[in-house]
């Protein structure tokens, strides 16, 4: 039986060591009928339909769907053709007053060297506040979806993804401190360079996930106790809401007397941006790690 290149690649890959018990198992040359892996194309009709209708649907649906995608791509390409040229400084999107204001007086008004951080955490901080709440809500929804079950796992050891692999463990051992350190650096330097709460928080979350995957939840729980997850998120969101709510209440004047813009380029500068970055980073890191814990059915 002739195998495709992909099949041979998979067979080679899953020879001795299966990648997380994952790749397609070879059974005498033919693909096993894997139900949830059934990624064949097109839908079928549901309910009481005749055989003719069913056949018609199976022909028409992919054709019409492809046609719809083609029409959409043609329309969008037509729009793209009408757009101002790529990289044009005079296009309406790039020559608005607001952007000039953000760049020209962003440094003196917010104290942030990174203009994007100044925008998302000072000028448009409410946007970011709502967005942090979106994250929090998503975490709650996943919590409800995955933990609101009565039956508990009978074999808790099987539930966890335990990579019992020496190379992986050693690599994680050497790599995870640097990932966590780099995440902290990115959060703390959010107003000075590229990065900020979102990316740094995601990095810390990824580092914690790596630790938890390699050494089990007990070790990662030593870094951040799982019980304090909700407390950390709550305190961060409350701090954010209070700090920005106050400035909203005072006509966008904010706490500039306490948190001064300071000397641009210093780490303790840029007013509220550094504390807000820390708050957002904590929320994001805890949420990412919480997603992981929920999906692997650890207790949070």
């Amino acid at each position, binding site marked *: 039986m002739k195998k495709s290149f992909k099949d041979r690649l998979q067979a080679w890959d899953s020879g001795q060591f299966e990648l997380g018990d994952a790749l397609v198992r070879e059974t005498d040359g033919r693909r096993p009928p894997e*139900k*949830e892996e*059934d*990624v064949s*194309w*097109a*839908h079928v009709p*549901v309910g009481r339909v005749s055989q003719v209708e069913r056949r018609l649907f199976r022909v028409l649906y*992919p054709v019409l*769907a*492809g046609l*719809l*995608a*083609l029409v*959409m*791509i043609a329309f*969008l*390409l037509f729009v*793209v*053709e009408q*757009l101002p*040229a*790529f*990289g*044009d*400084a005079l*296009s309406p*999107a*790039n020559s608005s007053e*607001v*952007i000039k204001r*953000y*760049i*020209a007086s*962003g*440094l*003196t008004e917010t104290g942030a*060297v*990174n*203009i*994007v951080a100044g*925008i*998302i955490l000072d000028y*448009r901080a409410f946007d970011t506040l709502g*967005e942090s709440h*979106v*994250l929090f809500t*998503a*975490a709650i*929804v*996943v919590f409800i*979806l995955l933990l609101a*079950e009565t039956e508990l796992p009978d074999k808790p050891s099987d539930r966890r993804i335990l990579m019992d692999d020496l190379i992986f463990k050693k690599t994680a051992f050497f790599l995870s401190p640097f990932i966590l350190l780099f995440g902290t650096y990115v959060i703390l330097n959010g107003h000075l*360079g*590229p990065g*900020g709460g*979102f990316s740094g928080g*995601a990095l810390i979350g990824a580092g914690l996930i790596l630790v938890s995957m390699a050494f089990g939840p007990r070790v990662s729980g030593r870094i951040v106790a799982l019980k304090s997850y909700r407390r950390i998120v709550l305190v961060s969101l409350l701090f954010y809401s209070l700090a920005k709510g106050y400035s909203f209440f005072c006509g966008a004047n904010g706490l500039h007397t306490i948190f001064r813009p300071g000397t641009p380029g210093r780490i303790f500068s840029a007013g509220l941006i550094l504390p807000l970055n820390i708050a957002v980073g904590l929320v994001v890191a805890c*949420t990412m790690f919480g997603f992981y814990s929920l*999906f692997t059915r650890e207790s949070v």
Partner: protein
Amino acid sequence: MLTALWNNRIEVVAVILFAVGFSTLLLHRNLLKKVIGLNIMDTAAYLFLTSLGYIRDRLSPIITDGATDPEAYVNPLPAGLVLTGIVVSVSVTAVMLGLTLRLYKRYHTLNLDEIYRMTHEEQEAER
């Protein structure tokens, strides 16, 4: 026409990726594939937005050497908007995956047609 498309090639790539994600969403029955398709659509939209903010021969929006001239930096606004969008898209992905897991636990398949059929049969049986 072709030169205009060639000049806007990043937007063209974004449109193609959007269509790829959209057709995945329409044509695949597998729920996880649909989630991936939606993610690709997300990224395509972000790529489109970011490419609109790019200005040739300018610096990235981090103030260097104290220059606060608006003519020196690219447009920082799309980056700020997309930054929040990326994080929202990952939380949307997490919610969708949670729903997928619940569906799998109930129906033991990821095939959306099978799930439809089973829910239909359940409704018929109730009637």
